[in-house]
Each structure stands twice: as C-alpha cells, then as structure tokens.
C-alpha cells in the first residue's frame, strides 16, 4: 500500500487554507499544495501529482461538485481519491456528495490535531 505523502487542498477561505496547511503539514507531516478555487487548480493540478485531493464544496463561481467533475476528466486523476470538506452537514447533502463518487466527506469544523490522521485513514481505506 503506497504511503500518503502529497495532498492538494482547494478552498476559497484563506483562513481555513492556513489551518488545514498547519494541521496537515506541521502536525501531520504531509506535503500540501493549496489553491483558492477550482479554476486556479484545474490547469496545474495534474503536475502536482497528488495522492489525495481535499475539496471544499461551497465555493463561488465553480463549486466543489463541478470542480470534482472536471478533475475526473484530467488524465491521471481519474481515480485519485477525492475527499469533500463541507459545513453543510445534513444527511441529504452528505449522501449526494458520496453519490458523486467522493471517498469520504469531512465535516467542518474539524479537529486540527487529528485531521492528518483522519485523512490517512480515509486514504488507506480508499486504496
């Protein structure tokens, strides 16, 4: 089983990007590349060669679901595990995100001290 090393995180909230970066990188020891939107990420995400993608759901212009669909069209990323992060925690919302093909959904707010462990577990289960 390959180790989880490199994560791409897409979120429009700069503060949340900062917390996630610290949680995954500083606490979890993972490489993190971040983008503020799907539009910014799509042209370059393949070059980042991520093991796993963390994707915010509610973003202006291109939302998480649309970004998910576009990523899946990029050669080499068809099967990369994608985990949604959302503050919308209703059962219906979660079910529709899983239906789309996400390997898991993380609810905001998350525990910054255990985020890396959570992501590692999701990655192990997905591979």
């Amino acid at each position, binding site marked *: 089983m390959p180790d989880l090393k490199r994560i791409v995180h897409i979120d429009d909230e700069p503060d*949340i990007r900062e*917390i996630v970066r610290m949680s995954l990188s500083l606490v979890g020891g993972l490489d993190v590349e971040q983008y503020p939107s799907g539009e910014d990420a799509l042209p370059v995400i393949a070059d980042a060669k991520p093991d796993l993608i963390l994707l915010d759901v509610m973003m202006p212009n291109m939302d998480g679901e649309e970004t998910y669909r576009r990523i899946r069209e990029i050669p080499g990323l068809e099967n990369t595990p994608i985990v949604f992060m959302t503050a919308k925690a209703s059962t219906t919302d979660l079910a529709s995100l899983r239906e789309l093909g996400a390997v898991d959904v993380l609810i905001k707010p998350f525990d910054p*001290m255990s985020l890396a462990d959570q992501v590692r577990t999701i990655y192990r289960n997905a591979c």
Partner: protein
Amino acid sequence: MVELLNISTAATTLLVVVIVILSGAAIRRKDKITDLAKQQLHETELEVAFQRKALFESGAVSVTDEEGKIVDVNSKFLDTFGYQRDALIGRHISEFYPENEQTLSREIRAKTRDGRIWSGETHLLRADGSTALTHNTVVPFLDGNNRHIKNLAIRTDISKQKIRDNQKLVTSAFDKMTDAVVLFDPNNFTIIYMNAFALAEHGWSADEAYGTSLWKTRYVSKPTDMNEKCKSINENGKCTARIESETNGKVYDAHSYRVTVSSDTHRILTMFREVTQSVELERERNRLISIITHELRTPLTSIKGALGLLDSCAMGPMPAEAKNLVGIALRNSDRMLDLIAQILEAEKAEHDAGNIPLEPVNLAEVIRSAISANQGYGTELGITFRDPCDTPDLWVNGNERVFQQVLANLMSNAAKFSPSGSTVDIWAERQKDKIVLHVRDQGKGIPSAIQPHLFSRFVKANQEVRGNVHGSGLGLSIVKSQVERLNGSIDYETAENVGTCFRIALPRLQGAQPMGNALQASA
C-alpha cells in the same frame, strides 16, 4: 319567504284553535240550547264546517283517537307524505315519528290529553323512508265530561324551506370569509358558486361566475394544477394542494372537499387561501438556515482550528495564562457550535414534521440506552442518572432516534439545573391506556415567570447553571414538537427547591407485542 311561512303557520294554528273552541262549545252546550239558540248554533256550525273544509284543504291533517291511533287523514296528508290511506288508518301516530322523537311524541300526547294545544316542529317519516320536517299544531277534542276523545293535527312540510334557510346561513358565513370559496362541478370544472370574497377578487357577479370554467379564475389556470395534486380526494374526500398561479404569480393553498349531492352526483368545494407571503417567509427562513450552516460554521472552523492548534502547543509552549485564555475561547466557540447545532436540529424537526416513521419501541430499552449514552455528561456535572423502578417492557408506537433526542434534552436540562451529587430519575409506567415517561430532577424548580412560555423557543431560565453549561433555549421547544409527532403530550410538575418532573404521556401500543420480543419473552 320565511316570514310568509311563519304568518301562514300562525294563521293555520289560529284557525284550528277557533274551530276547536267553537266545536267544543257546540258539543258541551248541546243540551241547554233553546230554539233561538238552535238557529244561532246552526249558523255557527255552518261557519265551522266551512272553516273546517278550508282547513282540510290547506294543511296535511290527521285525526287520531284517544289512544293515538290514526282514524282519518285528508288527501293533502297523503300527497305530502306519499302514503295510501289504508296504510295509515288504525296505526299509531308515533310509528311515523323518527326514533329520536318518540319521547316528543309521548309529550305531545300527554299535553293534549290534558286538553292543551301543542304547536312546534316535528319530523314525520315519509312513505319512501325519508324524513320531512313539519310545523305541527295538535289540537285536542274533549267530550262533555272534558274527557279527551281525539286529536286533530295539521302539518305544514317545511323541509325545503329549512334547507333553503340553512343554505342561506352557510352562504352568508362563506361570504364573511376572507378566503376565496368556490363550489364547482368536477365533471366539467364549471363554477356553481363563489363566495363574496372570490367574486370581488374577479369583479364578477354571482350570475357571471355561475357556469364559468374554473380555469378562468386567478387561482388555477390549468387542469394539471388541481388534478395531479388532488388525487387523494377520490380516496378520502378531501385534499390540500399548493398551487402557484400562472395568472397572477401568487401562491395558494387549496383545501378541497368532496360534497355529495346524491349517490352519483358530487361537487367539489375548494377554499383558496393566498400564502404567497408565508411562502416567501419560508424561503427566507431556508436561506437563513443556509447562512447559519455555512456562513457561521465556516469562520468558526478557522477560529476553532486556530485555537485547537494553539491549545495543543503545536506552535510551541504557551504561558499558563495564555493557555487559560485559549481554553476560554475554545469553550465559547464550542458553545456557539452547539447553539448552531440546536437551531439546525429545531429546524430539521420542523421540516421533518410528519415524516418520522413510527414503529413499536420498548421504553425500557430506550431508558437504558439513554442513561448509558448520557451518563458521561451527567458525571461531568456530578449527576447520577438512574431508573428507580427498573422499568418493565412497555411498548409504544414511536421512533427510537426521536426518543433518544427527547430524553437527551430533558436529561441534560435536569443535570444542568440540579445540585452536584444529586440524582435524576428516569422511568416509565402504565397509567390506564397510556404509558407515561418521567424525568425527575432535584433542582430548584422552574421559575413561575417562565412557566407559561416554557415550551416556546429561546426561553431560558434565568438561573445559575453549573459547569459553565449554557443552553440555547431551544431544547424544550424541540422536545414538545417531537413528543407531539409521536402522538404524545408533555407536561410537568415543579416545586421550588424540590425539583421538576417532566411527564410524557404516550398512547399504549395496542395488540400483541412485536414478534422478536415475544420470542425473547418465551425463551
């Protein structure tokens, strides 16, 4: 028309009375008359005979003997009630009164036996089995010894008039309403009746509305609106549909009822209530919920995340005072998240109204699970949760998840307002045809000032709570609405410095207990 009828009825009564007085006088004074008097009496008798003829031709008249058996009826009686003469003669008049007027029939006979006239409304069975409402005047005839010998009753069928009066009453009530009421024929959707409010909205007269297609109203513009959304009317005779009118863009709640005119003729009575504003408010509320879920939780994610990283010393060691301050900020961000969660829970409960699947639930197991699930929280506050009665298996129709939500709310409330070291009791018992679930604490009791609003939203006791635990004021509002969704009711008893006991009464599950439990019980 009503007045005319009353005048006619009064005149008939008066006429009957005059005849009887004259007839009675004639009978009693027969032996004492002189020749002159004979002549006068002859003239009087002629007059009486004339009036009697008039009477017999104008009303439905029946004559009964002293026992109440019919001895004569006029042709008007036969025409009015549809009988053949032979079917009536010799039968007791009470046989023609409906069951619920048998006592009245006896009262009339008792009164007339005493020589008194009775007048009022009675029903009479027609030959076809239907019932006619009549105005009835019953006049007793006495012999020379004042002995009751027969009754003469004159009836006027006022059924149709009564129906017309009732119809007027109903339409006048509809005309006072500020919702549109439309009666239409479901076969061709043409309007039969519109109330004053609906007519005014369209600028139509009643005649203009009559026969107009329902689809020409401002409420519904196409058949699919009513047909698709109102299929249930064929099953249970009523339905409610929300219709967005294409004519004026307004939203209406249409409450429809099937009205049976005869066995094969039906009409639909629909009340259109405009709800555009409340629909807008509902949309606004949903938008607010979305803001709460996303716009509040997102910054809280950053706040809580940053504080969490600081608190764990991931950024390096912190002075004790700083760590204390970070702890305060963390607790309060948790509190805000709890509040958001409760608001969402309340909204979800509102939204899920009527969608909770009900199934047999054993309250004994519910109580055991609730005590186990909430004991950790209780321990933090020094509270012991226990079931003092070791509740036996008691089955109700409910929902396990909802019961756990209800108990968690009541138990956390009880713990928050109880002194450390005290006990909160949770048990259930059977009371007649109900199962009553109790949650009793040993706290300070509910202040009388908030008792009238206790189950309203955002009502909080202005009491000291322990462990820095604050409530949102939504818990009891959620509890009440959830209990009502389980067809139950909630009340409480409270006494200052003694405690409070909440009681949830639920209908006992009828019939056999679920198979699984029955098997367990017999094993």
